[in-house]
């Protein structure tokens, strides 16, 4: 499509043309007058005709240009009215653009939220299927929870006061009474059977009647769990013996205690 001249260019060119023609016309008129004055009828008449023809042509040209200018001005007026419509349409389009941008932003946010939710839901489904594939007995879970909370590491006992020797971590006395502490004893005393080593803390605790109540409370989880933990390690090692039949009994007692008493087993009130 050939690019058309804009109306502004047409108007300006019309005005330029009128200016040039007006100048030519005034020059032509002046020359006409000069020739008329200076020369005689004969010579002047001979030259006057082309001058007057030229003059006439210039006059016609300026009139035509003026007509063109007026027509172009009318066109410009119509275009001015159309321009108002253009401005209104552009405003409306801009308003819609703003709304579309807002909508796009909201959709993007929604997509992000949904993607996050779907991802988390998929993860949950995966963990559910994993749990369904390897079910765990609820009693065992409670037992382990019991054992974990028995050491007071999760929460202090309700009766705990300042000065209470109980700590959320095993103290040095408890460590000495544990398996690692008695390993040293075993080495010192030479050869000692493993079951004997396991029986020992029972005797030492029973003999320790002078132990104050708070310390007894401290050792409460030892008395209940001390045999169980080595028993677990025993089962790992595959050692069989007379200990096995005692273990289920201890575990049953533990389970009975757990099922009847909902509070933590680390409390000293049981002692």
């Amino acid at each position, binding site marked *: 499509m050939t690019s*058309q*001249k*804009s*109306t*502004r260019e047409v*108007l*300006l060119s019309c*005005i330029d043309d*009128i*200016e040039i023609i*007006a100048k030519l*016309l*005034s020059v032509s*008129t*002046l020359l*006409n*007058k000069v020739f008329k004055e200076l020369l005689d009828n004969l010579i002047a008449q001979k030259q006057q005709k082309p001058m007057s023809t030229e003059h006439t042509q210039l006059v016609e040209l*300026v*009139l035509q240009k*003026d007509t063109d*200018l*007026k027509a172009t*001005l009318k*066109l*410009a*007026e*119509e*275009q*001015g*009215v*159309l*321009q*108002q*419509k*253009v401005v209104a*349409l*552009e405003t*409306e*389009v801009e308003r*819609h*653009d703003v*709304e*579309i941008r807002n*909508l796009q932003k909201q*959709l993007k946010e929604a997509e992000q939220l949904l993607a996050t939710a779907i991802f988390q839901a998929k993860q949950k489904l995966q963990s559910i299927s994993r749990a369904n594939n390897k079910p765990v007995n609820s009693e065992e879970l409670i037992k382990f929870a019991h054992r974990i909370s028995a050491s007071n590491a999760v929460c202090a006992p309700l009766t705990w006061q300042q000065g209470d020797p109980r700590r959320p971590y095993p103290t040095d006395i408890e460590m000495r009474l544990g398996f690692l502490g008695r390993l040293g004893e075993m080495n010192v005393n030479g050869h000692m059977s493993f079951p004997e080593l396991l029986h020992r803390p029972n005797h030492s605790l029973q003999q320790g009647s002078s132990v104050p109540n708070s310390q007894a409370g401290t050792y409460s989880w030892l008395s209940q769990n001390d045999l169980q933990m080595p028993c677990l390690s025993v089962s790992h090692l595959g050692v069989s013996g007379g200990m096995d039949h005692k273990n289920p009994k201890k575990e049953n007692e533990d389970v009975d205690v757990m099922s009847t008493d909902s509070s933590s087993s680390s409390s000293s009130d049981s002692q």
Partner: protein
Amino acid sequence: MATQHFSEGDFDLLSTIYDIIKSVEKEQQDNAQKLKDSQEAGQKVLELQRKLDHAREVVKKLPGIELSKDEQLLQIDLLRRQLTLKRDLLNKYRSITSFDRETQSEYQINQH
């Protein structure tokens, strides 16, 4: 007539041109009068120049004449089409139904 950004006097150049020609064509015997006529002609020429400059200024300020009329009509047509498209797009997304079980089950059926 719609709002005009110019008056007819802004582009009335012919009268000034006529005045110039008339003052140039005047035949005077008296030198003083001749001088006066030539001065008058000179003033008319200046006036014409001023009118031409004023006309150019008015043309530069006129709105909507950056394009030809055909191009302007084409621009209006394009803007109208753009507006229709954008309006339809917005209506489409505004009237979209939120998630519901019927469409969800239809989607699942189509997937299987």
